């Protein structure tokens, strides 16, 4: 398997508090990699560290051949490592289209934004309907689509999805889970942290279980799904 993103022994956290205690993982090219674990196990911290929102204390993050753990977040975005954060974090006072446009701020995406935005609207027709509406007035599901769309606007190579269905109605969650596999067809690698264990392992090529800031299990998606220890770790 060709790794697009390679994580070697990274540690990080918030100030004095260390959350990640040496993570090793790979994200395959155009594959879906799932990250599961209980609340507070370090899923969000890992994604935020990969995106450069949190600083890496030690360890390496390799994007292809290049070490990127010291790069600021905007340079990682420019390389195509883009996060869709937990809680959506859309810009409430900007319109839907303006939100999408902010996603294309990096050099690679900037000039082709008008082309990309059409593709995003194709993927999420709902956003086209709400094009001029302020993002703060959208429903939760629409905001999630917007956040996802905004991530796609940056032309990601690696998309880091943090709890994309948290707090959404089941029907909307289903919609989102249907879209994610489509993205790999456009050669996007996906690393997804998700609470809905079964659903995410259904679509994932590979999965990691994280506990207390360490990877405790890893296997193909289907193997993990059938492993009773996983469910236990998840609940514990």
């Amino acid at each position, binding site marked *: 398997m060709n790794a697009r993103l390679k994580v070697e022994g990274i540690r990080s956290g918030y100030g004095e508090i260390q959350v990640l205690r040496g993570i090793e993982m790979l994200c395959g090219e155009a594959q879906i990699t799932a990250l599961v674990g209980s609340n507070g196990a370090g899923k969000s911290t890992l994604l935020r560290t990969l995106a450069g929102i949190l600083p890496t204390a030690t360890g390496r993050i390799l994007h292809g051949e290049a070490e990127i753990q010291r790069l600021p977040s905007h340079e990682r975005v420019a390389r195509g490592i*883009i996060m869709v954060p937990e809680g959506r*974090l859309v810009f409430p006072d900007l319109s839907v289209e303006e939100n999408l446009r902010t996603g294309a701020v990096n050099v690679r995406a*900037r000039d082709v934004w008008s082309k990309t935005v059409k593709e995003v609207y194709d993927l999420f027709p709902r956003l086209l309907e709400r094009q001029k509406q302020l993002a703060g007035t959208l429903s939760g599901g629409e905001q999630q689509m917007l956040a996802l769309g905004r991530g796609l606007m940056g032309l990601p190579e690696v998309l880091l999805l943090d709890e994309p269905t948290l707090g959404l109605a089941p029907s909307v969650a289903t919609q989102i889970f249907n879209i994610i596999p489509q993205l790999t067809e456009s050669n996007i690698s996906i690393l997804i942290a998700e609470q809905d264990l079964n659903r995410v392992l259904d679509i994932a090529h590979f999965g990691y279980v994280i506990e207390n800031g360490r990877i405790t299990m890893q296997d193909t998606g289907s193997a993990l799904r059938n492993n009773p220890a996983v469910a236990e770790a998840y609940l514990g």
Partner: protein
Amino acid sequence: MIEILISPQLAFSALVLGSLYSLIALGLNLVYGTMRLLNIAHGDLIMIGAYTTFWIFTLTGIPPFVGLPLAAGIAAAIGAILYFSIFRRQLSGIDRVERIEANSLLLFFGVSVILQNTVGMMFSGSPRAYQFLDTVYEVSGLMMTGNRLAILIFAAIVLTSVVIFLTRSQYGLSISALIQNQTAARVVGINVSRLQFVSFISGFALAGIAGALVSMTEQISPFMGFPFTIAAFVVIILGGLGNIKGGIIAGMLLGFVEIYVVVLTSANFRSMLIYGLFVGILLLRPEGLLGKTRRH
């Protein structure tokens, strides 16, 4: 009474005052919005802008409009020095983010004291003034002093171009995004620290421009800045801290309120009214009169 209230003269004054309020609040808001820094030295940058324009005009005869970019440039340069020597350090380091607002007040208070007294040392405390564009123009009963009209026009030009820039350009959009949510701005790949720097010096430059305009009608002294700082704070509280458009509208609103209340009640209540409004808004709607209630 009614005749006075509907006279265009009052409306014109309200527009001039309001646009000036909007302009001085704009710079303050830009700095607060993008960096959460409360710049109580803002008025002192206005003072610097006024002195720059005054000296250029007095020594060379170059009119304030031409001196204006230089006033903006000097204010921006002071901004750049402060950014690199003090605030860049303050902004990095997550553990300090919560303290940054309170700290910035103290830091800028220090800056304010330094600026006032440095200028006082250089040029003495004597009030200065110059005569420029003070012919009165009459347009169908409305009388306008040239310099006040110029303030209105220039402020309007600056305000509209800033609003257009913020809403239309990719760069301005990024600034709006940064103001609304810093983490999200980093997530989408906005170069936050560069944008903060640009906003910081733009905020200072706007203060310099305001100073250049103010110098045409008011006396200039090293300690003239504080009332402007206060006015700017009242405005950005009315409009909602960090809300750029809200601040511009609130500035205009305050201009009108001030002018018309003086006529309707008594000039004696002017300051009580302004501070009463200020305190009332903070108590009842801390997100600003024009801000949206939002949980964050």
